[in-house]
């Protein structure tokens, strides 16, 4: 039985219309291994996590324009500040990757845990990763339905509040 408890499983998360912060917290818990009762920081008990559809990520509020990702190249005058929208346009994986990087514990294990995280901007997965997937995690946020997704019966069943 012990081989099953110490096995490294592969999780898949669909990030469509989800806030990247909630996705990142779920990823960091599973990358560290904190979802297992046999967790210990020194024992290498983290799992693999695959994030799909990161290009359809949804920020709450006006964070697409307000959130700024800053970095410095090391050279003088190399301080770059990019808004979340611009960064997403350049690289759709970066937002989720940076969010998970900030949520993992700040030690040398972080780099190995980031190597176990696999991010894909859309549905296309390589064959070997698809063969390894074991569990799909539920989405943290309920996606609201658009008006054209409601059937006509549901629209008719809803009572009219006022008469014109």
């Amino acid at each position, binding site marked *: 039985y012990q081989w099953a408890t110490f096995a490294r499983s592969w999780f898949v998360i669909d990030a469509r219309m989800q806030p990247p912060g909630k996705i990142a917290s779920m990823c960091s818990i599973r990358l560290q291994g904190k979802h297992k009762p046999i967790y210990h920081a020194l024992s290498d008990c983290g799992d693999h996590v695959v994030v799909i559809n990161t290009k359809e990520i949804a920020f709450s509020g*006006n964070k697409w324009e307000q959130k*700024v990702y800053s970095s410095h190249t090391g050279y003088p005058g190399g301080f770059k500040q990019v808004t979340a929208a611009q960064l997403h346009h350049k690289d759709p994986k970066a937002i989720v990757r940076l969010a998970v990087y900030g949520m993992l514990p700040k030690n040398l294990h972080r780099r190995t845990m980031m190597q176990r995280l696999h991010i894909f901007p859309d549905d296309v997965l390589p064959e070997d990763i698809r063969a390894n997937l074991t569990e799909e995690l539920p989405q943290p946020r309920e996606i609201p339905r658009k*008006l054209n997704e409601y059937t006509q019966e549901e629209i008719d069943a809803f009572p009219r*509040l006022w008469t014109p």
Partner: protein
Amino acid sequence: MAARCMLRSVWTSFSSLTLGPSASNFCSLQRINVPQLSALTIQSRGIRQVVEKREGNTITIEGKTVETPAAPEPPNPAAKCPIYRWNLQHKYNYTDVLLLSQFIRSDGGMLPRRITGLCAEEHRKIAICVQMAHRAGLLPDHRPKLPEGHVPKTPKPKLNRYLTRWSVKSVKPIYKPGLKWCKKRMDVGHPALKDNVRYSVKPLYMKH
């Protein structure tokens, strides 16, 4: 001056009677002589559909009132505002598109308060929710009509968002967020909806 005061007092006393065509007569008359409303000139409210008929040379454009089917009985018929009549005061959100779509025009704008009969706060709350639903993309068919011959430019990839308080173009990026104790927070949701019914223990988090 005295005539104007008399006009205003008579206008307020007769404001309950909806006198559309006779309003223009007020200015011309010295003595207020309100014509009696007969049964034929009762104004009716209702959505009308424009019907065009061609009979030889004449074209008649008619507005026929569309029959609206009777709505079911609201639980609280005594209240004035439709939301209070149905006891939905603090229970709706930007996701309840079926409710919000009853108060919007076909191009996405809000209907005026005097037509829908909403009270001021609820009208404001519904306007805010409709704005948030538009920005979230939950009302794809209620778009403004583009003028004919308008060639749409190559559209930029739309970013998914929800609970946006401010308009997309008006927000500036926070280049210097500050330290933890004096951080410039990003606003999520709207304070008008802070009294909504919450079924979870966690408080509503509006400053992210």
